């Protein structure tokens, strides 16, 4: 059974690229373009891994991450934070809030896929 | 010389006393007829008080008490 991946980003072009990449790897993909939709979809879709942007309308990635980690049914879900904000403090903050990996944009598609595969074991 | 402030002040007091002795209204008290040991009262008063004032001034500046 293929893994389920939830892509959360408000940049349409980035969503297109990520969706294409994940589908190519054979994952099941869902997309949310803001934080609230992301939380809703996460509880319905119960993804194995979430690619989470930080800068988003309505709810920031940090808030979403915190909420996800509080949900018992999503304990196993891995979270990769993908963000253009690369400052040390933000990386630390993301990891402290429960993200498994923190990747700064622009990222290497090859590395991203490798990271996902290793997280999903 | 005038040895101390105290001496100067004593003299100044005599100055005020003199101003009082030699002027109206005290003067009008003696400005009358009659005689005082054979002298007109005004003459006796002025010469007498004048001499007394000089004596006091002498006493004030010459005494070494202060």
């Amino acid at each position, binding site marked *: 059974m293929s893994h389920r991946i939830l892509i959360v980003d408000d940049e349409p072009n980035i969503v297109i690229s990520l969706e294409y990449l994940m589908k190519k790897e054979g994952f099941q993909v869902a997309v949310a373009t803001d934080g609230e939709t992301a939380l809703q979809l996460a509880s319905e879709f119960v993804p194995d891994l979430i690619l989470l942007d930080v800068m988003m309308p309505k709810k920031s990635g940090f808030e979403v991450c915190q909420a996800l980690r509080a949900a018992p049914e999503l304990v196993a879900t891995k979270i990769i934070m993908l963000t253009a904000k690369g400052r040390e403090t933000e990386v630390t903050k993301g990891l402290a809030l429960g993200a498994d990996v923190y990747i700064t944009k622009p990222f290497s598609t090859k590395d991203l896929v490798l990271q996902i595969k290793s997280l999903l074991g | 010389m005038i040895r101390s402030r105290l001496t100067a002040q004593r003299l100044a007091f005599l100055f005020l006393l003199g101003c009082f002795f030699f002027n109206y209204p005290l003067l009008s008290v003696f400005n009358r007829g009659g*005689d005082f040991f054979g*002298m007109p009262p005004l003459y006796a008063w*002025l010469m007498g008080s004048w001499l007394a004032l000089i004596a006091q*001034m002498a006493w004030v500046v010459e005494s070494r008490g202060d």
Partner: protein
Amino acid sequence: MLQSWVIVLASFFYLGILFAIAWYADRRADTGRSLIANPVVYSLSLGVYCTTWTFYGSVGRAAASGIGFLPIYLGPTLLFALAGFILHKMIRVAKANRITSIADFVASRYGKSQLLGGLVTVIAVVGVIPYIALQLKAVSNSFAILASYPDIIMPAKAGAVPIFQDSALYVAMILAAFTILFGTRHLDATERHEGMVAAIAVESMVKLAAFLAVGIFVVWGMHDGAGDIFAQAAAVPEVARRLTTADSPAAYGTWGTLIFLSLFASLLLPRQFQIAVVENVDESHLRRAVWMFPLYLFLINLFVLPVALAGMLHFPGAGVDADTFVLTLPMAHQQEGLALFVYIGGLSAATGMVIVETIALSTMVCNDLVMPALLRLPMLGLATRADLSGLLLEIRRWAIAVILGLGYLYFRVAGEAYALVSIGLISFAAVAQFAPVVIGGLFWKGGTRDGALAGLAGGFVLWAYTLLLPSFAKSGWLPDGFIAHGLFGIEFLRPQHLFGLTGLDEITHCLVWSLLVNLGAYIGVSLQRVPNLREARQATLFVGGAEAAGIPGWRGSAGVTDLLPLAGRFLGLERAHEAFARHARQRGLRGIEELPPDTRLVNFAETLLAGAIGSASARAMVASVVTEEPLGIDEVMNILDEASQVRAYTRELEQKSLELTRATAELREANARLQQLDRMKDDFISTVTHELRTPLTSIRAFSEMLQEDPKIDLAQRARFLGIIVSEAVRLSRLINQILDLAKLESGRAEWTVTAVDVAEVIREAAESLTVLFAEKHVALDLDACEDGLIVLADRDRLMQVMVNLLSNALKFVPADSGRVRVGLAALCVPEIPLRGQVTPQEVRVSVTDNGPGIQAEDQDVIFDKFRQGAGTADVLTDKPQGTGLGLPISRQIIEYFNGRLWVESTPGAGACFVFALPRQAGDNDASKSTGGVP
């Protein structure tokens, strides 16, 4: 036996003795064994106060008004009771400053003013001349009376005798010669005359002895003691009136006035100042004089009233002038010897007064009147003449002769109109004019030269008008109409009832007016300004007493080589040399050549010179050789004035602390602003980085995907490439805007400012966006844009703003149903006077959309490039086409043209961006103006 030649011989014999005494005293002084360094001599010499006025005149006044002669002697008694405060201080000040006369004293006190010294001299000379005339009159009268012995004949009226038969003329000439011999034999640096003082002390003894002798003869020789005289007097009604005095307020007022007047006269008369202050050898002598001088006055007045009463009893009727009773009573009883003794006593009183007075006056005339004038005349070349000491003596000798000449003139002109006492009182009133400036100068630091000049001049003029001129008029020398009817016939200007003041005797009347004006002008004018540097320094020296003498008077220096010749010119080289050598020894130096050219030496030289030529002239002379360092007069003056110093200091402190507080606040604010800026910059960089990375992310991701998977189908590939291109475009636009903003902020942007028709710009901007609007099916409404509204701006920049606003609006309106409307209007805004604007009008452009609107709290934030970002994710971030920098850039541009850019919005009901620019009155505008525009 009392032929004229006997009297003349006796007179010359007496004068010869005096001269011998003086000569001997001078000899003793030169050998350092002063004859007059003795408090008794000092006290006796003060007896120069008693002139012929006392000797003959007191009896005359007693015959006229009883005890009324006495205030003239009570006043000095009271002055000496104040010796500790006034005389003592004057002596110390005068010694410390080598004061040589009352004129010098006043001149020195008010900044060593030559003008002031001259004025005091003039007043003193004019004021004292009647007094000298009085002595001449007394001596010549007593001579005439005595010469007619055994008959008692009153002398002829002065002026009735041909001038060369007038004994007064010869008296004047003899006295002049005697005084010249006496007082101007040599020039002394201290202006002290030991021989003269010794002679005066002897004269005081002679006149006292003579008067006491007459008194004893009259009381016990002619009568049976004083009681007998008083008893006889009481029996004669006419004489008995003299046993009391007039019992009226005016009489007591006059009495008090005379005490007050004589108090000042005994200090301020030039001869009194000379003897009491200048000739004082040792200030400790003052202690004895405090009681001895009043005692002298007491003794010389003891028999005045009895003698006067006896004279009135003995010479009933007006046949014998009461002023001569002292002489005529012994004559009437054939006491030739006593009569001659009395005559000598009178001569003694007269010569004493004339000698001291004329010497004092001649010093003043020479030092304060003639020398300053001569030194100022360059053609005389005096300033460079080697030895002036001879000239100084010459001037003084002439001054003595002239003063006595003037005295004789007054005697001829006005001498008969008044009794002796009245003439003396005219002089008293004149010198009383010095009282405010002298006493004030000793105790009040605020007096200025101008104040002293004004006070003296005012007082002097009033004295002359109310007292001196009437005395001329009464002698028929001036038309007397102005006494009765006032000057120019104006009643108010009657000299003896000035401004309608009546009920006072002429002396009191004169004093009331002259001292009122004098004091008022002195204080009033002084208070016009702060004393200047020199006045303030002298004030400190005088008011602060001798203790303050340490204050250096000169800020410059000069050497012995300059100062010694200078002093030598006035003192004679030998004397000057001696004085300098003494000064060197005092300073512990071996000789003159070791004296350093310092302030102390200059001060010494000035004081030395002051003794010979007066302080004002001395200062001028020393100034000619001393190179004084430049003084910031105003500055130093302020420093000297304690009060203003403290005031200025406090003010400065307050100001400084205020400045500090302000600076602190500013610094704190600046710091806060810097910290905020730092934070903002951090945020900005973070935001910019984010904004740059976002398109980069897409570009990289798609590029990598295309690179790694060559099998992607063509449609997909074209789509990916399209995305890459559009993101690249976005990236470059972003970079351009960041650079643009940086340029705007740093002020390095280039502007081409011209008159721009706003409507044209709007249309052009709209045109460039037509395609985009059409794509989204959004309506753009430009109908309210009329032409002719001109602003001063950069056309391209304005276009940039317009495009930005329009594309912003386009971004946020819904597709198909979106509407954007542009409005343009000119508004009168008188309440906002814009910089450089003639017309208080502005052009307003609004861009209204029907988008979602903006929250109130975000309406400011959207213009803030730094704030835009993290916390404002749901605000306009104009993604994907925008960069978030459009509005900040637009605002910068509008504000550069003195305009404003803001947004009005109700969330849910669209937004309206408005910018306003000052309207420029252009050509188009003028033609279209509706007239309401100024």
